[in-house]
Protein backbone atom coordinates (compact mmCIF):
# COMPACT_ATOMS: atom_id res chain seq x y z
CA UNK A 1 0.00 0.00 0.00
CA UNK A 2 1.21 3.50 -0.73
CA UNK A 3 2.70 5.83 1.87
CA UNK A 4 0.09 8.54 1.12
CA UNK A 5 -2.77 6.19 1.98
CA UNK A 6 -1.16 5.40 5.35
CA UNK A 7 -0.78 9.13 6.04
CA UNK A 8 -4.54 9.52 5.54
CA UNK A 9 -5.14 6.70 8.03
CA UNK A 10 -3.15 8.34 10.82
CA UNK A 11 -5.97 10.65 12.06
CA UNK A 12 -8.31 7.68 11.82
CA UNK A 13 -5.94 5.69 14.05
CA UNK A 14 -5.69 8.59 16.50
CA UNK A 15 -9.49 8.78 16.69
CA UNK A 16 -10.02 5.01 16.78
CA UNK A 17 -11.80 4.83 13.44
CA UNK A 18 -9.82 1.98 11.86
CA UNK A 19 -10.76 -1.68 11.91
CA UNK A 20 -8.33 -4.27 13.26
CA UNK A 21 -6.86 -5.16 9.85
CA UNK A 22 -6.24 -1.53 8.98
CA UNK A 23 -4.64 -0.94 12.39
CA UNK A 24 -2.32 -3.91 11.82
CA UNK A 25 -1.25 -2.67 8.39
CA UNK A 26 -0.70 0.87 9.60
CA UNK A 27 1.31 -0.25 12.63
CA UNK A 28 3.54 -2.29 10.33
CA UNK A 29 4.10 0.80 8.20
CA UNK A 30 4.75 3.00 11.25
CA UNK A 31 7.49 0.63 12.32
CA UNK A 32 9.46 1.47 9.20
CA UNK A 33 8.35 5.05 8.35
CA UNK A 34 9.79 7.87 10.48
CA UNK A 35 7.73 10.53 8.72
CA UNK A 36 4.44 8.84 9.60
CA UNK A 37 5.58 8.24 13.18
CA UNK A 38 6.34 11.93 13.49
CA UNK A 39 2.92 12.78 12.05
CA UNK A 40 1.21 10.53 14.61
CA UNK A 41 3.25 11.93 17.51
CA UNK A 42 2.44 15.50 16.49
CA UNK A 43 -1.22 14.67 16.09
CA UNK A 44 -1.30 13.27 19.61
CA UNK A 45 0.19 16.56 20.81
CA UNK A 46 -2.56 18.42 18.93
CA UNK A 47 -5.20 16.21 20.56
CA UNK A 48 -3.73 16.90 23.97
CA UNK A 49 -3.51 20.65 23.35
CA UNK A 50 -7.08 20.80 22.03
CA UNK A 51 -8.20 19.29 25.32
CA UNK A 52 -11.86 18.88 26.08
CA UNK A 53 -14.87 21.10 26.67
CA UNK A 54 -16.78 20.66 29.89
CA UNK A 55 -20.50 21.02 30.43
CA UNK A 56 -21.79 24.58 30.02
CA UNK A 57 -22.12 26.46 33.30
CA UNK A 58 -25.54 26.84 34.89
CA UNK A 59 -25.23 30.62 34.53
CA UNK A 60 -24.55 30.40 30.81
CA UNK A 61 -27.38 27.91 30.34
CA UNK A 62 -29.78 30.14 32.26
CA UNK A 63 -28.76 33.18 30.22
CA UNK A 64 -29.19 31.23 26.99
CA UNK A 65 -32.65 30.02 28.03
CA UNK A 66 -33.72 33.50 29.01
CA UNK A 67 -32.50 35.00 25.75
CA UNK A 68 -34.22 32.19 23.84
CA UNK A 69 -37.50 32.96 25.55
CA UNK A 70 -37.18 36.61 24.55
CA UNK A 71 -36.10 35.55 21.05
CA UNK A 72 -39.17 33.35 20.67
CA UNK A 73 -41.42 36.17 21.77
CA UNK A 74 -39.77 38.58 19.33
CA UNK A 75 -38.71 36.07 16.71
CA UNK A 76 -36.07 38.07 14.90
CA UNK A 77 -32.78 36.22 15.36
CA UNK A 78 -30.04 38.53 16.53
CA UNK A 79 -27.72 38.07 13.61
CA UNK A 80 -29.94 37.35 10.72
CA UNK A 81 -31.06 40.87 9.96
CA UNK A 82 -30.17 42.62 6.74
CA UNK A 83 -27.43 44.54 8.50
CA UNK A 84 -25.60 41.40 9.60
CA UNK A 85 -26.11 39.57 6.32
CA UNK A 86 -25.29 42.45 4.07
CA UNK A 87 -22.00 42.09 2.28
CA UNK A 88 -20.03 45.15 3.24
CA UNK A 89 -16.95 44.12 1.31
CA UNK A 90 -17.79 46.54 -1.51
CA UNK A 91 -16.73 49.36 0.80
CA UNK A 92 -13.18 50.11 -0.14
CA UNK A 93 -11.16 50.49 3.10
CA UNK A 94 -10.25 54.11 2.44
CA UNK A 95 -13.95 55.06 2.19
CA UNK A 96 -15.08 53.21 5.30
CA UNK A 97 -14.17 55.92 7.78
CA UNK A 98 -15.92 58.57 5.69
CA UNK A 99 -19.03 56.46 5.25
CA UNK A 100 -19.13 55.55 8.95
CA UNK A 101 -18.74 59.23 9.89
CA UNK A 102 -21.54 60.27 7.54
CA UNK A 103 -23.82 57.57 8.96
CA UNK A 104 -23.09 58.67 12.54
CA UNK A 105 -23.83 62.28 11.62
CA UNK A 106 -27.11 61.33 9.93
CA UNK A 107 -28.17 59.20 12.91
CA UNK A 108 -27.28 62.04 15.29
CA UNK A 109 -29.30 64.58 13.29
CA UNK A 110 -32.28 62.23 13.10
CA UNK A 111 -32.11 61.52 16.84
CA UNK A 112 -31.88 65.25 17.61
CA UNK A 113 -34.88 65.94 15.39
CA UNK A 114 -37.02 63.30 17.09
CA UNK A 115 -35.98 64.36 20.60
CA UNK A 116 -36.45 68.14 20.24
CA UNK A 117 -39.56 68.20 18.09
CA UNK A 118 -41.52 66.49 20.90
CA UNK A 119 -43.06 68.51 23.72
CA UNK A 120 -41.69 67.63 27.14
CA UNK A 121 -42.99 64.20 28.06
CA UNK A 122 -43.28 64.97 31.77
CA UNK A 123 -44.55 61.96 33.63
CA UNK A 124 -46.80 60.86 30.84
CA UNK A 125 -50.51 60.26 31.05
CA UNK A 126 -51.83 58.75 34.25
CA UNK A 127 -54.03 55.81 33.34
CA UNK A 128 -56.71 54.95 35.86
CA UNK A 129 -58.38 51.60 35.55
CA UNK A 130 -60.30 50.40 33.67
CA UNK A 131 -58.67 51.15 30.32
CA UNK A 132 -58.99 49.50 26.97
CA UNK A 133 -55.25 49.34 26.37
CA UNK A 134 -51.96 50.86 27.36
CA UNK A 135 -51.13 52.89 24.28
CA UNK A 136 -52.84 56.24 23.72
CA UNK A 137 -54.85 56.32 20.52
CA UNK A 138 -53.38 59.58 19.28
CA UNK A 139 -49.71 59.72 18.39
CA UNK A 140 -49.18 63.06 20.21
CA UNK A 141 -46.82 61.77 22.87
CA UNK A 142 -45.55 58.72 21.04
CA UNK A 143 -42.07 58.19 19.69
CA UNK A 144 -42.21 56.49 16.34
CA UNK A 145 -39.46 54.26 15.06
CA UNK A 146 -38.57 51.35 12.80
CA UNK A 147 -41.06 52.29 10.07
CA UNK A 148 -41.43 49.58 7.44
CA UNK A 149 -43.33 50.42 4.29
CA UNK A 150 -45.64 47.77 2.94
CA UNK A 151 -47.25 49.96 0.28
CA UNK A 152 -45.05 52.99 -0.40
CA UNK A 153 -46.81 53.91 -3.64
CA UNK A 154 -49.18 56.84 -2.96
CA UNK A 155 -50.35 57.13 -6.58
CA UNK A 156 -53.68 55.50 -5.69
CA UNK A 157 -54.06 57.74 -2.64
CA UNK A 158 -53.30 54.98 -0.11
CA UNK A 159 -50.17 53.89 1.70
CA UNK A 160 -49.50 51.13 4.19
CA UNK A 161 -46.75 50.75 6.74
CA UNK A 162 -45.93 49.35 10.15
CA UNK A 163 -44.04 51.14 12.91
CA UNK A 164 -43.05 50.73 16.53
CA UNK A 165 -44.49 53.26 18.93
CA UNK A 166 -43.23 53.93 22.43
CA UNK A 167 -44.89 56.23 24.90
CA UNK A 168 -44.26 57.01 28.58
CA UNK A 169 -47.00 55.41 30.65
CA UNK A 170 -47.75 56.06 34.29
CA UNK A 171 -49.76 53.22 35.77
CA UNK A 172 -51.26 53.30 39.24
CA UNK A 173 -53.53 50.69 40.74
CA UNK A 174 -53.94 47.50 42.70
CA UNK A 175 -51.49 44.61 42.46
CA UNK A 176 -54.59 42.53 41.79
CA UNK A 177 -55.28 44.48 38.62
CA UNK A 178 -54.67 42.06 35.68
CA UNK A 179 -53.04 44.86 33.67
CA UNK A 180 -50.58 45.66 36.45
CA UNK A 181 -49.91 41.97 36.97
CA UNK A 182 -49.33 41.59 33.23
CA UNK A 183 -46.84 44.47 33.09
CA UNK A 184 -44.98 43.21 36.16
CA UNK A 185 -44.86 39.70 34.68
CA UNK A 186 -43.41 41.08 31.45
CA UNK A 187 -40.84 43.09 33.42
CA UNK A 188 -39.95 40.02 35.47
CA UNK A 189 -39.13 37.90 32.47
CA UNK A 190 -38.08 40.38 29.79
CA UNK A 191 -36.35 43.34 31.42
CA UNK A 192 -32.64 43.49 30.68
CA UNK A 193 -31.91 45.31 33.92
CA UNK A 194 -31.70 42.86 36.86
CA UNK A 195 -32.76 45.68 39.21
CA UNK A 196 -36.06 46.01 37.34
CA UNK A 197 -36.62 42.25 37.40
CA UNK A 198 -35.85 42.19 41.12
CA UNK A 199 -38.29 45.05 41.79
CA UNK A 200 -40.98 43.33 39.74
CA UNK A 201 -40.48 40.07 41.64
CA UNK A 202 -40.59 41.95 44.96
CA UNK A 203 -43.84 43.65 44.00
CA UNK A 204 -45.39 40.31 43.11
CA UNK A 205 -44.22 38.88 46.42
CA UNK A 206 -46.98 40.31 48.55
CA UNK A 207 -49.79 38.77 50.54
CA UNK A 208 -51.97 41.52 49.06
CA UNK A 209 -52.06 39.42 45.90
CA UNK A 210 -55.59 38.05 46.20
CA UNK A 211 -56.18 37.00 42.63
CA UNK A 212 -52.98 35.36 41.41
CA UNK A 213 -53.11 35.03 37.69
CA UNK A 214 -51.82 31.98 35.75
CA UNK A 215 -49.52 34.19 33.68
CA UNK A 216 -48.03 35.70 36.84
CA UNK A 217 -47.39 32.21 38.18
CA UNK A 218 -45.79 31.19 34.89
CA UNK A 219 -43.58 34.30 34.91
CA UNK A 220 -42.50 33.62 38.50
CA UNK A 221 -41.72 29.98 37.69
CA UNK A 222 -39.72 31.06 34.65
CA UNK A 223 -37.77 33.59 36.72
CA UNK A 224 -37.23 31.02 39.47
CA UNK A 225 -35.80 28.48 37.03
CA UNK A 226 -33.92 30.71 34.62
CA UNK A 227 -33.03 34.13 35.94
CA UNK A 228 -29.29 34.52 36.28
CA UNK A 229 -29.67 36.86 39.26
CA UNK A 230 -29.81 35.14 42.67
CA UNK A 231 -31.95 37.91 44.17
CA UNK A 232 -34.58 37.63 41.43
CA UNK A 233 -34.77 33.86 41.81
CA UNK A 234 -35.06 34.21 45.58
CA UNK A 235 -37.89 36.76 45.32
CA UNK A 236 -39.66 34.63 42.72
CA UNK A 237 -39.47 31.61 45.02
CA UNK A 238 -40.84 33.63 47.92
CA UNK A 239 -43.64 35.00 45.73
CA UNK A 240 -44.64 31.52 44.59
CA UNK A 241 -45.18 30.51 48.21
CA UNK A 242 -48.18 32.86 48.22
CA UNK A 243 -49.79 30.66 45.55
CA UNK A 244 -51.66 27.43 46.27
CA UNK A 245 -49.16 24.56 46.08
CA UNK A 246 -49.69 22.56 42.88
CA UNK A 247 -47.73 20.28 40.57
CA UNK A 248 -46.30 23.14 38.51
CA UNK A 249 -44.94 24.88 41.59
CA UNK A 250 -43.73 21.58 43.04
CA UNK A 251 -41.86 20.76 39.83
CA UNK A 252 -40.30 24.22 39.74
CA UNK A 253 -39.13 23.89 43.34
CA UNK A 254 -37.74 20.42 42.71
CA UNK A 255 -36.01 21.78 39.60
CA UNK A 256 -34.31 24.38 41.82
CA UNK A 257 -33.40 21.71 44.35
CA UNK A 258 -31.84 19.57 41.62
CA UNK A 259 -30.25 22.23 39.44
CA UNK A 260 -29.68 25.58 41.12
CA UNK A 261 -25.97 26.13 41.70
CA UNK A 262 -26.65 28.43 44.65
CA UNK A 263 -26.93 26.40 47.92
CA UNK A 264 -29.09 29.12 49.51
CA UNK A 265 -31.66 28.63 46.74
CA UNK A 266 -31.61 24.87 47.22
CA UNK A 267 -32.13 25.34 50.96
CA UNK A 268 -35.02 27.73 50.28
CA UNK A 269 -36.51 25.12 47.94
CA UNK A 270 -36.28 22.45 50.67
CA UNK A 271 -38.09 24.78 53.06
CA UNK A 272 -40.73 25.50 50.44
CA UNK A 273 -41.50 21.82 49.73
CA UNK A 274 -41.16 20.81 53.39
CA UNK A 275 -44.86 21.12 54.12
CA UNK A 276 -45.62 18.71 51.28
CA UNK A 277 -43.30 15.97 52.49
CA UNK A 278 -46.16 13.88 53.89
CA UNK A 279 -48.42 14.07 50.88
CA UNK A 280 -46.24 14.01 47.81
CA UNK A 281 -44.08 10.94 47.15
CA UNK A 282 -42.15 12.79 44.45
CA UNK A 283 -41.02 15.42 46.98
CA UNK A 284 -39.92 12.67 49.34
CA UNK A 285 -38.10 10.83 46.55
CA UNK A 286 -36.09 13.90 45.53
CA UNK A 287 -35.26 14.74 49.14
CA UNK A 288 -34.05 11.17 49.70
CA UNK A 289 -31.84 11.52 46.67
CA UNK A 290 -30.49 14.89 47.78
CA UNK A 291 -29.66 13.64 51.28
CA UNK A 292 -27.14 11.30 49.68
CA UNK A 293 -25.95 13.14 46.59
CA UNK A 294 -25.94 16.90 47.12
CA UNK A 295 -22.47 18.42 47.18
CA UNK A 296 -23.36 20.65 50.10
CA UNK A 297 -23.16 19.04 53.54
CA UNK A 298 -25.83 21.24 55.09
CA UNK A 299 -28.28 20.46 52.28
CA UNK A 300 -27.69 16.74 52.78
CA UNK A 301 -28.33 17.20 56.50
CA UNK A 302 -31.43 19.31 55.91
CA UNK A 303 -32.88 16.87 53.39
CA UNK A 304 -32.25 13.96 55.74
CA UNK A 305 -33.96 15.80 58.61
CA UNK A 306 -37.07 16.47 56.51
CA UNK A 307 -37.20 12.88 55.27
CA UNK A 308 -36.90 11.57 58.82
CA UNK A 309 -39.67 13.91 59.96
CA UNK A 310 -41.88 12.54 57.23
CA UNK A 311 -41.13 8.93 58.14
CA UNK A 312 -41.84 9.49 61.80
CA UNK A 313 -45.35 10.75 61.08
Amino acid sequence: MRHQKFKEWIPLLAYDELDEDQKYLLNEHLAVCAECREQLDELKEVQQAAGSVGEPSETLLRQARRELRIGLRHPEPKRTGWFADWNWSWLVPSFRTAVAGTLCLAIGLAAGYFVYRQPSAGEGPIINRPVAGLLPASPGNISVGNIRFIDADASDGNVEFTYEATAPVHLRGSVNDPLIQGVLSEALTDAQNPGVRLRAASLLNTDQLKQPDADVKRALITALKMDENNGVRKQALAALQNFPFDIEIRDALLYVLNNDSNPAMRIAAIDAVRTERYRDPEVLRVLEEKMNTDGNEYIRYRSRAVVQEAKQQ
Partner: protein
Amino acid sequence: MFREQYEMDLDERELILEAQKGEGAAFEELVYRYDRKILKLAFSYTKDEEDAKDVYQEVFIRVFRALPGFRFDSRFSTWLYRIAVNVCLSYKSRAQNREHESLDMDDEQGSGRSFDPVSPDLPSDQKALGSEISQHVRAALEALSPQQRLVFTLRHYEGYKLKEIAALMNCAEGTVKKYLFTATERLRHQLRPVFQ
Protein backbone atom coordinates in the same frame (compact mmCIF):
# COMPACT_ATOMS: atom_id res chain seq x y z
CA MET B 1 -33.78 -1.49 28.40
CA PHE B 2 -35.75 -1.52 25.15
CA ARG B 3 -38.95 -0.98 27.08
CA GLU B 4 -37.46 2.08 28.80
CA GLN B 5 -36.33 3.45 25.45
CA TYR B 6 -39.76 2.76 23.97
CA GLU B 7 -41.50 4.52 26.84
CA MET B 8 -39.13 7.47 26.56
CA ASP B 9 -39.83 7.72 22.83
CA LEU B 10 -43.56 7.51 23.47
CA ASP B 11 -43.30 10.25 26.05
CA GLU B 12 -41.25 12.36 23.66
CA ARG B 13 -43.72 11.76 20.85
CA GLU B 14 -46.52 13.06 23.07
CA LEU B 15 -44.44 16.10 23.92
CA ILE B 16 -43.72 16.80 20.26
CA LEU B 17 -47.39 16.44 19.33
CA GLU B 18 -48.34 18.83 22.12
CA ALA B 19 -45.65 21.30 21.07
CA GLN B 20 -46.86 21.06 17.47
CA LYS B 21 -50.29 22.16 18.70
CA GLY B 22 -48.63 25.26 20.17
CA GLU B 23 -48.39 24.09 23.77
CA GLY B 24 -45.56 26.22 25.17
CA ALA B 25 -44.85 24.02 28.18
CA ALA B 26 -44.31 20.99 25.93
CA PHE B 27 -41.87 22.91 23.73
CA GLU B 28 -40.06 24.13 26.84
CA GLU B 29 -39.74 20.55 28.07
CA LEU B 30 -38.29 19.50 24.71
CA VAL B 31 -35.80 22.37 24.89
CA TYR B 32 -34.78 21.40 28.42
CA ARG B 33 -34.14 17.82 27.36
CA TYR B 34 -31.56 18.74 24.78
CA ASP B 35 -30.37 22.29 25.32
CA ARG B 36 -27.34 21.48 27.46
CA LYS B 37 -25.95 19.34 24.67
CA ILE B 38 -26.73 21.97 22.06
CA LEU B 39 -25.09 24.70 24.13
CA LYS B 40 -22.04 22.49 24.67
CA LEU B 41 -21.80 21.79 20.94
CA ALA B 42 -22.20 25.50 20.20
CA PHE B 43 -19.45 26.39 22.64
CA SER B 44 -17.15 23.62 21.39
CA TYR B 45 -17.61 24.98 17.90
CA THR B 46 -17.44 28.71 18.54
CA LYS B 47 -15.16 28.76 21.61
CA ASP B 48 -16.99 31.88 22.72
CA GLU B 49 -19.85 32.15 25.21
CA GLU B 50 -21.69 34.96 23.43
CA ASP B 51 -21.43 33.24 20.06
CA ALA B 52 -22.48 29.96 21.67
CA LYS B 53 -25.63 31.63 23.02
CA ASP B 54 -26.35 33.04 19.56
CA VAL B 55 -26.00 29.61 17.96
CA TYR B 56 -28.13 28.04 20.72
CA GLN B 57 -30.85 30.62 20.23
CA GLU B 58 -30.91 30.26 16.48
CA VAL B 59 -31.07 26.46 16.70
CA PHE B 60 -34.14 26.52 18.91
CA ILE B 61 -35.84 29.30 16.99
CA ARG B 62 -35.41 27.22 13.83
CA VAL B 63 -36.71 24.17 15.69
CA PHE B 64 -39.70 26.17 16.92
CA ARG B 65 -40.50 27.32 13.40
CA ALA B 66 -39.97 23.95 11.75
CA LEU B 67 -41.57 21.77 14.42
CA PRO B 68 -45.09 21.85 12.91
CA GLY B 69 -43.57 20.21 9.81
CA PHE B 70 -41.75 17.47 11.77
CA ARG B 71 -43.23 14.14 10.60
CA PHE B 72 -41.34 11.64 12.80
CA ASP B 73 -39.35 10.37 9.82
CA SER B 74 -36.28 10.42 12.04
CA ARG B 75 -35.63 10.62 15.74
CA PHE B 76 -36.27 14.08 17.13
CA SER B 77 -32.70 14.26 18.48
CA THR B 78 -31.24 13.48 15.03
CA TRP B 79 -33.44 16.14 13.44
CA LEU B 80 -32.42 18.64 16.14
CA TYR B 81 -28.69 17.96 15.75
CA ARG B 82 -28.97 18.31 11.97
CA ILE B 83 -30.42 21.74 12.52
CA ALA B 84 -27.63 22.51 14.98
CA VAL B 85 -25.03 21.39 12.45
CA ASN B 86 -26.55 23.64 9.78
CA VAL B 87 -26.67 26.58 12.17
CA CYS B 88 -23.01 26.07 13.06
CA LEU B 89 -22.08 26.05 9.39
CA SER B 90 -24.14 29.14 8.56
CA TYR B 91 -22.94 30.89 11.72
CA LYS B 92 -19.49 30.73 10.29
CA SER B 93 -20.71 32.33 7.11
CA ARG B 94 -22.19 35.26 9.01
CA ALA B 95 -18.98 35.72 10.96
CA GLN B 96 -17.21 35.73 7.63
CA ASN B 97 -19.46 38.52 6.41
CA ARG B 98 -18.74 40.56 9.52
CA GLU B 99 -15.04 40.15 9.13
CA HIS B 100 -15.07 41.30 5.54
CA GLU B 101 -15.85 44.66 7.02
CA SER B 102 -12.48 44.97 8.64
CA LEU B 103 -10.18 42.50 7.04
CA ASP B 104 -8.40 42.46 3.76
CA MET B 105 -6.98 39.05 3.45
CA ASP B 106 -6.37 36.15 1.21
CA ASP B 107 -8.74 33.30 1.79
CA GLU B 108 -7.10 29.94 2.01
CA GLN B 109 -9.32 26.94 1.30
CA GLY B 110 -12.40 29.03 1.84
CA SER B 111 -11.96 29.58 5.55
CA GLY B 112 -12.35 33.31 5.19
CA ARG B 113 -10.77 34.02 8.55
CA SER B 114 -7.39 35.39 9.37
CA PHE B 115 -4.81 33.35 11.15
CA ASP B 116 -1.50 34.60 12.36
CA PRO B 117 0.84 31.66 12.33
CA VAL B 118 2.27 31.01 15.75
CA SER B 119 5.51 32.84 16.13
CA PRO B 120 8.33 30.33 16.41
CA ASP B 121 10.37 32.74 18.52
CA LEU B 122 7.95 32.74 21.45
CA PRO B 123 9.78 32.50 24.79
CA SER B 124 9.83 28.92 25.96
CA ASP B 125 8.29 29.77 29.34
CA GLN B 126 5.25 31.23 27.60
CA LYS B 127 4.92 28.14 25.44
CA ALA B 128 4.49 26.15 28.60
CA LEU B 129 1.42 28.10 29.66
CA GLY B 130 -1.81 26.20 29.09
CA SER B 131 -3.82 29.34 28.41
CA GLU B 132 -1.32 30.44 25.78
CA ILE B 133 -1.61 27.08 24.05
CA SER B 134 -5.40 27.29 24.24
CA GLN B 135 -5.28 30.62 22.43
CA HIS B 136 -3.13 29.14 19.69
CA VAL B 137 -5.46 26.15 19.39
CA ARG B 138 -8.45 28.46 19.15
CA ALA B 139 -6.77 30.58 16.48
CA ALA B 140 -5.81 27.45 14.56
CA LEU B 141 -9.38 26.13 14.75
CA GLU B 142 -10.76 29.46 13.55
CA ALA B 143 -8.51 29.22 10.52
CA LEU B 144 -10.16 25.98 9.40
CA SER B 145 -13.04 25.95 6.95
CA PRO B 146 -16.49 25.60 8.60
CA GLN B 147 -16.79 21.97 7.50
CA GLN B 148 -13.31 21.02 8.72
CA ARG B 149 -13.87 22.78 12.01
CA LEU B 150 -17.27 21.19 12.53
CA VAL B 151 -16.02 17.67 11.80
CA PHE B 152 -13.10 18.19 14.19
CA THR B 153 -15.48 19.60 16.84
CA LEU B 154 -17.97 16.76 16.50
CA ARG B 155 -15.27 14.07 16.57
CA HIS B 156 -12.80 15.51 19.06
CA TYR B 157 -15.01 17.41 21.51
CA GLU B 158 -18.39 15.76 21.13
CA GLY B 159 -17.22 12.19 20.58
CA TYR B 160 -19.36 11.39 17.53
CA LYS B 161 -18.17 8.61 15.26
CA LEU B 162 -17.40 9.59 11.67
CA LYS B 163 -20.39 7.58 10.40
CA GLU B 164 -22.70 9.56 12.68
CA ILE B 165 -21.12 12.84 11.60
CA ALA B 166 -21.69 11.91 7.97
CA ALA B 167 -25.38 11.33 8.74
CA LEU B 168 -25.67 14.64 10.58
CA MET B 169 -23.92 16.56 7.81
CA ASN B 170 -25.77 14.65 5.11
CA CYS B 171 -22.63 13.67 3.24
CA ALA B 172 -20.55 10.57 2.56
CA GLU B 173 -18.34 9.10 5.27
CA GLY B 174 -15.38 9.45 2.93
CA THR B 175 -15.97 13.18 2.73
CA VAL B 176 -15.97 13.40 6.51
CA LYS B 177 -12.70 11.46 6.64
CA LYS B 178 -11.22 13.94 4.20
CA TYR B 179 -12.36 16.88 6.33
CA LEU B 180 -10.88 15.28 9.44
CA PHE B 181 -7.59 14.59 7.66
CA THR B 182 -7.31 18.15 6.33
CA ALA B 183 -8.32 19.64 9.67
CA THR B 184 -5.79 17.63 11.66
CA GLU B 185 -3.04 18.32 9.10
CA ARG B 186 -3.65 22.05 9.23
CA LEU B 187 -3.79 22.05 13.03
CA ARG B 188 -0.61 20.02 13.17
CA HIS B 189 1.28 22.38 10.89
CA GLN B 190 -0.05 25.54 12.52
CA LEU B 191 0.60 24.36 16.07
CA ARG B 192 4.00 22.83 15.34
CA PRO B 193 5.89 25.98 16.44
CA VAL B 194 4.07 25.89 19.78
CA PHE B 195 5.24 22.37 20.48
CA GLN B 196 8.83 22.89 19.40
